[in-house]
């Protein structure tokens, strides 16, 4: 056995990349779980094609999974990776630009044969493994296919089945490199393939083979340790942002989709606004318009949530900032919908939905109460029931079918205030329009104030973000502060209504920059509402912000 040296690192970014059929998402998820159990803080970024079976070996078919983990607080999946696992030439070609100079490449040589080169449009004489173009990197070439086939020669499996185990070899090797515990993945394989012992054993064998390869070859001089992060004590789990019509009958109605689906639901959202019933609408935003780029992130549905319906149709709009915030804010969305009898938009995005982070989850006893009141039954002599009589929140009674004496009719036609009868009265329509707006505005009395996330309470520049850009903006702000800039970061989670103090907070900074993954939406609302000369900073590529590009942009504005 060769002696390897252990090196201690504060944080590492690894990108697993291969063909869609190479199982990179599973590899990444397993590595993530092992890393979470090891006690590191982490953030992940899966980036995969929308096609379930994208064309084999091509650039379009490349599937990637990036994980950033460390002993310090981790806010983003990392701008650039330290290690790139490339299962084929297409994966290398697509991802090499985001590998740090001097970074490690683990390349599966079998994925660089003539056929793969042709599929990835790489000229025959330009094999990157041999033409010297990767000289600035630490290149490790391994014929993963050959080793896997050899290891499973007498497994009784077909070549196709054997080749599907390749990702386990890589996973085992990377586990070895970073001293990760393997139990979790061993158990996962055992339970996933419990009905097919041959496949189970094959996966276990190849996973161990990967580990042993690191241990026995002289390819790697170093192994790395990344100590557990100092996190708030408590019980944690991993959380992804995506784990997180019956309102008339007395149930909370929840519907979820992305932009195109929300467009289809628009008329029903208008109806719920008119009926003043509790409804939560979840929109996991992706690049649009129309079908756009499924699986790619964007923040371009804010205007749709705010205004994308016919008529004056205000609804409450909340936007989560991270996978774990999805829980907090989804709970808040339900609470507001039920307590204010109002539709609430809950915005997430592809980046949050697919990303993962450790989450110190609450127990239900610690969650605030949600107060729900149903209107009580009435007897013959009682005053007639008034379905649009309001309380101090301006919300109307929830009168569910089956309750004696509460028979009433509601619908999409304009209502007379208090009685709820159909009304075409001019003054009443204006009154009702104002009431529906005021009802949304009043929610501001029940939400928490806007806080500064990073930096001082005043200064030269405020970075004001919303949604899934949280981590990148936070990291960028910390870098800028370290370099002496008077910059702060605030992240809005309540967009309609805004927290009451937001206007004052904006005034305390000389400049306000609003980075968004769209063509400028929150910035328009802020300018309209607070008359601030907020500066838009937009990226519309279906990809999240990198911290370093935010840093560069802010410097450009300030210098």
């Amino acid at each position: 056995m060769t002696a390897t040296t252990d090196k201690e690192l504060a944080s590492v970014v690894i990108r697993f990349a291969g063909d869609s059929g190479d199982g990179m998402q599973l590899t990444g998820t397993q590595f993530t779980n092992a890393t979470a159990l090891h006690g590191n803080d982490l953030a992940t970024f899966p980036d995969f094609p929308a096609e379930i079976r994208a064309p084999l070996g091509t650039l379009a078919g490349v599937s990637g999974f990036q994980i950033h983990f460390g002993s310090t607080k981790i806010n983003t999946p990392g701008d650039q990776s330290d290690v790139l696992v490339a299962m084929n030439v297409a994966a290398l070609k697509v991802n090499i630009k985001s590998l740090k100079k001097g970074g490690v490449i683990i390349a599966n040589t079998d994925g660089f044969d003539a056929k793969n080169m042709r599929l990835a449009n790489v000229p025959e004489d330009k094999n990157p493994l041999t033409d010297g173009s990767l000289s600035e990197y630490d290149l490790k070439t391994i014929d993963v296919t050959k080793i896997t086939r050899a290891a499973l020669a007498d497994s009784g499996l077909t070549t196709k089945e054997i080749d599907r185990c390749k990702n386990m070899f890589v996973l085992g090797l990377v586990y070895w490199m970073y001293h990760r515990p393997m139990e979790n993945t061993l158990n996962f394989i055992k339970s996933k393939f419990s009905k097919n012992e041959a496949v189970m054993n094959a996966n276990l064998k190849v996973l161990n083979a990967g580990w042993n390869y690191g241990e026995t070859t002289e390819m790697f001089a170093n192994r790395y340790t990344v100590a557990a992060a100092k996190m708030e004590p408590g019980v944690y789990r991993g959380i992804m942002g995506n784990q997180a019509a019956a309102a008339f009958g007395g149930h909370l109605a929840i519907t979820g989709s992305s932009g195109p689906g929300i467009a289809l639901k628009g008329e029903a959202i208008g109806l719920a606004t008119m009926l003043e019933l509790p409804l939560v609408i979840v929109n996991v935003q992706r690049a649009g318009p129309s079908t756009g780029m499924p699986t790619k992130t964007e923040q371009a549905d804010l205007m749709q949530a705010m205004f994308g319906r016919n008529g004056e149709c205000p609804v409450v709009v909340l936007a989560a900032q991270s996978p774990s915030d999805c829980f907090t804010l989804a709970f808040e969305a339900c609470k507001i919908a039920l307590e204010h009898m109002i539709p609430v938009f809950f915005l997430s995005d592809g980046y949050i939905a697919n990303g993962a982070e450790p989450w110190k989850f609450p127990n239900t006893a610690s969650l605030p109460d949600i107060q729900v009141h149903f209107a009580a039954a009435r007897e013959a002599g009682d005053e007639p029931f008034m379905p649009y009589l309001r309380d101090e929140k301006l919300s109307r009674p929830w009168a569910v079918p089956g309750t004696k004496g509460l028979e009433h009719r509601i619908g999409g036609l304009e209502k007379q205030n208090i009685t709820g009868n159909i009304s075409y009265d001019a003054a009443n329509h204006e009154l009702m329009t104002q009431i529906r707006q005021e009802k949304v505005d009043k929610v501001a009395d029940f939400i928490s104030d806007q806080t500064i996330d990073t930096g001082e309470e005043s200064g030269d520049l405020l970075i004001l973000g919303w949604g899934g850009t949280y981590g990148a903006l936070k990291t960028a702000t910390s870098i800028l502060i370290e370099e002496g800039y008077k910059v702060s970061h605030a992240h809005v989670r309540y967009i309609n209504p805004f927290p009451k103090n937001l206007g004052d907070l904006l005034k305390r900074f000389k400049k306000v920059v609003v980075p968004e993954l769209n063509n400028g939406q929150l910035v328009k609302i802020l300018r309209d509402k607070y008359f601030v000369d907020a500066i838009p900073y937009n990226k519309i590529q279906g990809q999240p912000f990198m911290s370093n590009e935010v840093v560069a942009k802010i410097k450009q504005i300030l210098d």
Partner: protein
Amino acid sequence: MTATTEKLTAKDFASNQEVRWCPGCGDYSILKQVQTVLPDLGRPKEEFVFISGIGCSSRFPYYMETFGMHSIHGRATAIATGLKATRPELSVWIISGDGDSMSIGGNHFIHLLRRNPDVNLLVFNNQIYGLTKGQYSPTSEQGKITKSTPMGSVDHPFNPIALSLGADATFVARTMDRDPKHQQAMIRRAYDHKGTSLVEIYQNCNVFNDGAFEVFTEKSSKKEETLMMEHGKPLVFGENADKGIKLDGFKPVIVDLNDSAVSDLWVHDETDLVKATILSRFYDDPADENHFPRPFGVFYVNSKKATFDELFNAQIAYAKEKMGPGDLDKLIAGKETWLVN
């Protein structure tokens, strides 16, 4: 189902809202018949919910002293399914028009029928868009001249009964606004059926499509042009009850009862889907020579198919039995957790 102590009357089911259909509209009769039937069902008012889409017909819930929702064009079916699934103890009725059910709501219409929640769907078919002032609808006859088809419609119309049978509906009936007794009987049968009950009601829009069903509803031609189906009875029609339908293999033929015995006639069997399908195709233009009379009554009943609300709630009950009642804390914690000290 709770029994009420005092017996309700039709008036108890009339809301205080002014009815705003055109004078002479067939919708009035349907409102009256529903209000007449409901008191006989022995249920308190608060257990009834009427959900409608958009159209003249869909204004119906406003006039009923029950719970009601005037919802979205073509989507009452979806809202009613949600309500019935979560509140199966309620008596849920859907009110719709030919446009509402078969243009914009065509998709929801067929999915409601195949899912079979225990709701009643009354389609007021006037073969026109009434509320929007007289455009052709998916049941308008080919060649129809309307505001949107000034040179005559080129569309082939839907046959709502055949469409419903094709969507595996479990109760399919047709009635007409001008026959109160028959209408009441069909509404009652619809209520009694467990599963989705589709009742197509021929309704005269005297403003935009007056007389569309005249040959079936006018006394002078009704007996000759309609076939009133009754379970277990031979299919007889004609001015003097002198004609009948016989089955020659799968081919229906009209016979003259002066030459043929009643005992040779096709005896109506509501439970026979094949025969119901043949009857649904009696959809000829009454102006055609040798046309079949238009059938009214119950075409088909299948009382064996489970309802959506039953299956939906049984599955929840089964899940609870199998996995225990929901434990929110367990759900939040997920499968894997770790402790940070």
